[in-house]
């Protein structure tokens, strides 16, 4: 019964990540030292209903708890054991999984409000947050909507009207076609006049929904297939900056500095930071003042965000105003010390702003990475689903904030946004904040779903990102052939090999001795080690970026006799790249298709993906039909 551990025959796959690990300095979480106080004597709401789910619901509930407000969560039936339900004081089920039947189901939510006696509703972002109908219905019932009033939502919600108001308020607007395009033909004509690339946007879309970039006529007319009405904007290879504004019901408004949100994939942000590296105080003030004047022009109250596109000459143009709390608000909170949710609640209750413009600081630097359940190797991120079999947030690191609404065992389903969390790090300087982000990403344990941490980690250490030269086209420019994962340097490769081997024996790599030490525990997901005097944190998992096999010398030499396995010829097989539902199938068995021809469209998590033929061939069989739900890797169509 000797205790033993196999010495050879070892096959573990290492997922390597880099650099200093602070896991020994368990400092507790100190982040966002909000400068605002929660005055227990300031009368506020007794009970607030949060008409949202996931991390933002949890985020709002957190502040409510600090303010002594009771909270009501709403949830769909599949979410009944979700974190936001557990942390709320009360919870009401508002319908089945599809959002249209639950989180967008106004009747059910209105009932929940009546049933629980909530005095106000915080809508979070997405869902009903910019729905004027909802705001109206709440007003009719005498329930406070924690957000701007109906007029502002309506005015800013319409991409055309908002531009006209902005123009009137002397806000810089982009040259472009401000109107509704009738059909694909007209779109092509207008796009031609403006010059490619153009951005085509659905009139009432938000947060990147229905926003697409077209680079030529063909792409423009293709988009006519998806969208019925839209405007075209020039999309310069520019920057996307968001100015946070805060306005009360008494005509006071503040700007809380900018957020740099240029790193995007599919027009959705992935990495944000505040402040911006590119912006000087004068431009910042000019943008801030324009943002405030726009807020005043629509009699805005509550927190809102004015988005600007900025070209390389620091000309900035109004893009849109988001009349809600934004996903990336934590970085503004980090550098200003304000609790935006608390401010929104105070404003909704009718209080005046506590701060003057001169009170708003820029303290240090904050970076936010959006950790998504998605496969970064496919179009910088196609949604993935699954159950978080292991989940550990890097909260033992200092200056790290994680806003999440999930926990170990949670399901990432096809019904909702695949965001796992928002990972925010904070430092005195940008360099410090980025360094902390690196550590935090290395120490983040996620198993069970494919996630985008490999991509996030590459972005934040990329020389171009580090130098601050960021634009909205950062990803396609830096990775023109798509993200292929981290390319190991010779040194990294050696270190990785040494670590794997050192789990068993002392090592020499390519004749060079490598010192590996550390107090690792094979049962733990994290592997803090010191390698040639450098600290690194590695993670060991089955489906990793870097597959390593540790073999004895003998096994390695005999491996040369092993046959190479021929991979399946995939050109004649079309498989679903992600879980989702089939929107349309445009071929039937016997059809001849040309290479690149659309075969079917898969929709998953707000996105429609056109699946095309990899070669010119005849369709052999079709294994899906419109309306089907498909899993990742499911066979869709076979070609001959």
């Amino acid at each position, binding site marked *: *019964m*000797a*205790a*033993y*551990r*196999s*010495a*050879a*025959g*070892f*096959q573990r796959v290492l997922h390597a990540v880099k650099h200093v690990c602070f896991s020994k300095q368990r400092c507790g979480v100190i982040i966002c030292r909000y400068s605002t106080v929660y005055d227990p004597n300031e009368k506020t709401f007794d009970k607030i209903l949060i008409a949202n789910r996931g991390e933002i619901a949890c985020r709002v509930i957190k502040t409510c708890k600090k303010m002594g407000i009771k909270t009501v969560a709403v949830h769909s*039936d599949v979410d*009944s*054991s979700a974190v936001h339900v557990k942390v709320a004081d009360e919870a009401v089920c508002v319908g089945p999984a599809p959002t249209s039947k639950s989180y967008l189901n106004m009747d059910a939510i209105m009932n929940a409000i009546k049933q629980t006696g909530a005095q106000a509703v915080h809508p979070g972002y997405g869902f009903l947050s910019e729905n004027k109908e909802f705001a109206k219905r709440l007003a009719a019932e005498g329930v406070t909507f924690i957000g701007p009033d109906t007029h502002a939502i309506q005015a800013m919600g319409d991409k055309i009207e908002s531009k006209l108001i902005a123009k009137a308020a002397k806000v810089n607007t982009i040259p472009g076609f401000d109107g509704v395009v009738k059909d694909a033909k007209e779109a092509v004509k207008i796009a031609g006049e403006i010059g490619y690339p153009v951005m085509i946007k659905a009139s009432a879309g938000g947060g990147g929904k229905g926003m697409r970039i077209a680079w030529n006529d063909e792409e423009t007319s293709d988009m006519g297939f998806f969208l019925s009405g839209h405007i075209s904007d020039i999309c310069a290879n520019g920057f996307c900056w968001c100015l946070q504004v805060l306005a009360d019901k008494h005509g006071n408004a503040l700007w809380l500095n900018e957020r740099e949100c240029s790193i995007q994939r599919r027009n959705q942000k992935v990495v944000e930071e505040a402040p911006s590296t590119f912006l000087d105080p004068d431009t910042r003030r000019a943008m801030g003042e324009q943002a405030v004047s726009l807020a005043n022009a629509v009699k805005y109250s509550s927190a809102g965000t004015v988005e600007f596109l900025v070209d390389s000459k620091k000309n900035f143009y109004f893009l849109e105003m988001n009349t809600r709390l934004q996903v990336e608000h934590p970085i503004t909170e980090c550098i200003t010390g304000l609790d935006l949710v608390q401010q929104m609640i105070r404003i909704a209750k009718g209080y005046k702003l506590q701060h003057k413009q001169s009170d708003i600081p820029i303290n240090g630097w904050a970076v936010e990475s959006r950790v998504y359940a998605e496969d970064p190797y496919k179009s910088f991120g196609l949604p993935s689903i699954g*159950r*978080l*079999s*292991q*989940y550990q947030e890097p909260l033992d690191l200092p200056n790290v904030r994680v806003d999440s609404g999930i*926990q*170990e*065992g*949670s399901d990432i389903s096809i019904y909702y946004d695949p965001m796992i969390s928002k990972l925010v790090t904070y430092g005195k300087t940008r360099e410090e904040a980025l360094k902390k982000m690196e550590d935090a990403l290395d120490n983040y344990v996620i198993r*069970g779903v494919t996630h985008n941490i490999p991509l996030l980690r590459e972005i934040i250490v990329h020389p171009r990102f580090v130098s601050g030269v960021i634009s909205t086209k950062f990803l396609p420019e830096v990775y023109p052939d798509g993200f292929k994962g981290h390319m190991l340097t010779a040194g990294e490769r050696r270190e990785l090999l040494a670590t794997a081997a050192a789990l068993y024996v002392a090592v020499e790599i390519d004749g060079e001795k490598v010192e590996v030490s550390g107090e690792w*525990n*094979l*049962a*733990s997901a994290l592997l803090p080690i010191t390698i040639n005097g450098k600290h690194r944190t590695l993670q060991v998992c089955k489906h990793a970026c870097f597959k390593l096999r540790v*073999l*004895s010398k*003998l*096994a390695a030499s*005999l*491996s040369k*006799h*092993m*046959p190479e*396995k021929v991979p399946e010829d995939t050109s004649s097989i079309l498989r679903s790249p992600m879980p989702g539902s089939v929107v349309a199938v445009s071929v039937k068995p016997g059809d001849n298709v040309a290479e690149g021809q659309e075969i079917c469209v898969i929709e998953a998590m707000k996105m429609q993906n056109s699946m095309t033929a990899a070669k010119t061939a005849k369709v052999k069989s079709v294994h899906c039909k419109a309306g089907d739900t498909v899993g990742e890797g499911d066979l869709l169509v076979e070609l001959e």
Partner: protein
Amino acid sequence: TRSPRSADRFVVAKGLQNARCYSVKHLSVQERIEKKRKAALTGGGQLRIAAQHKRGKLTARERLELLLDPDSFVECDMFVEHRCSDFGMEADHNKYPGDSVVTGQGRINGRLVYVFSQDFTVFGGSLSGAHAQKVCKIMDQAMMVGAPVIGLNDSGGARIQEGVESLAGYADIFLRNVMASGVVPQISLIMGPCAGGAVYSPALTDFTFMVKDTSYLFITGPDVVKSVTNEDVTQEELGGAKTHTTVSGVAHRAFENDVDALLNLRDFFNFLPLSNKDPAPVTECHDPRDRPVPGLDTIVPFESTKAYDMLDIVHGIVDEREFFEIMPNYAKNIVVGFARMNGRTVGIVGNQPKVASGCLDINSSVKGARFVRFCDAFNIPIITFVDVPGFLPGTAQEYGGIIRHGAKLLYAFAEATIPKITVITRKAYGGAYDVMSSKHLRGDVNYAWPSAEVAVMGAKGAVQIIFRGKENQAEAEAEYVEKFANPFPAAVRGFVDDIIQPSTTRKRICRDLEVLASKKQTNPWKKHANIPL
């Protein structure tokens, strides 16, 4: 009963053996020993070794080197030669020291194991009387000292030139397989052809593993199949790794190639005791035994019709998430395999709700039963996770004999005297509840999660029988659910010992295993039991 052509090739190739022809009388004994040893080490010669490599296969000796700890192999019968004197076989150039198999003993991570490795480079690994005798010798020794036997099979079949002697050899091995069954673990790794009578040795051993693309197991090859039944079938379709691990259930697992298979075999060996007198090995455990598993509190979905992956539960609970699954691609509605709890080997059996709702059918019953019996024979405690809606109904199952096959699993659990821990995660319906290591079959510790429902059947079916023809079926159904769709009916009767929070399951099981380590239980004396085969 041998693969076509393999033996012929060796007769034709005799011209290549000239290098081996030497005049015996001019050499001293010492020199002769060295010559023979050298000849034994090269087996069928460099050309055939190269051919073996070209097929993506390792030689018999390379395989043993990989399987065993460095320098631990002690060979036996290196000088044994075949005794055939017909068809020119008596010629010197047709004699190979050691004949077509390498035998001996060695160590895997320091633990003793007896091995034989068939050498395809010598007469296609065909089985001669001498070959069989060598294998029998090490099997007898393994039984005597109490150590497992691992066979690496790569053989064209019987040595046709020897006729009945070869057949006798097979039978001698079969007998020993049967005698050793339940005494020492026996493992077969199929690394090349294994056809005809030869297949029954692996079939008798406890575990049969295969190498993908290069190994085959069949009673009769494609040519005979064609001539008898007129079926066109390839070797791979008829008896390849995929067939036997997904369709027939003959093999327990398949690996990518020789190296992968042998290294996995080493890992697998770590789970096994050396014999039925030996306790299962204990390894150093880095995983805290009282580790909570928070993910388990939410794993069972609220809707009882919704599936989840039983493997998530298994991985969450066992040491370091390491689970060596047996038959992962066959009868997937039941999950079986080995893992460790606080360093001790345990056998895991679990219904898999993801496949066919986790119901019991013929294949899953047989798969489960054989696994349970192995564990019982070798003192490996069994942890059973239950989420079973019942036996699969239908003519296919009834005609196939689900009654007698289902009885195997019932029998196996009932006769087992090793520590038995059962966790009902959700459904435990009908007869299947009884079968799945229930308290009534001498389960030592039976737990229910709060999501457990122990009942004769689901609410809808039950209500249709109890309240047949009555109105208010929905009301009655609700009443039934209230009464039975929870762990209380079983708990108040003591049929489960406790209702536990799922996240504490690992801690509870580790503690129970420690207590049960000294469990002693015997069945009444019998010559042998009569399991419904």
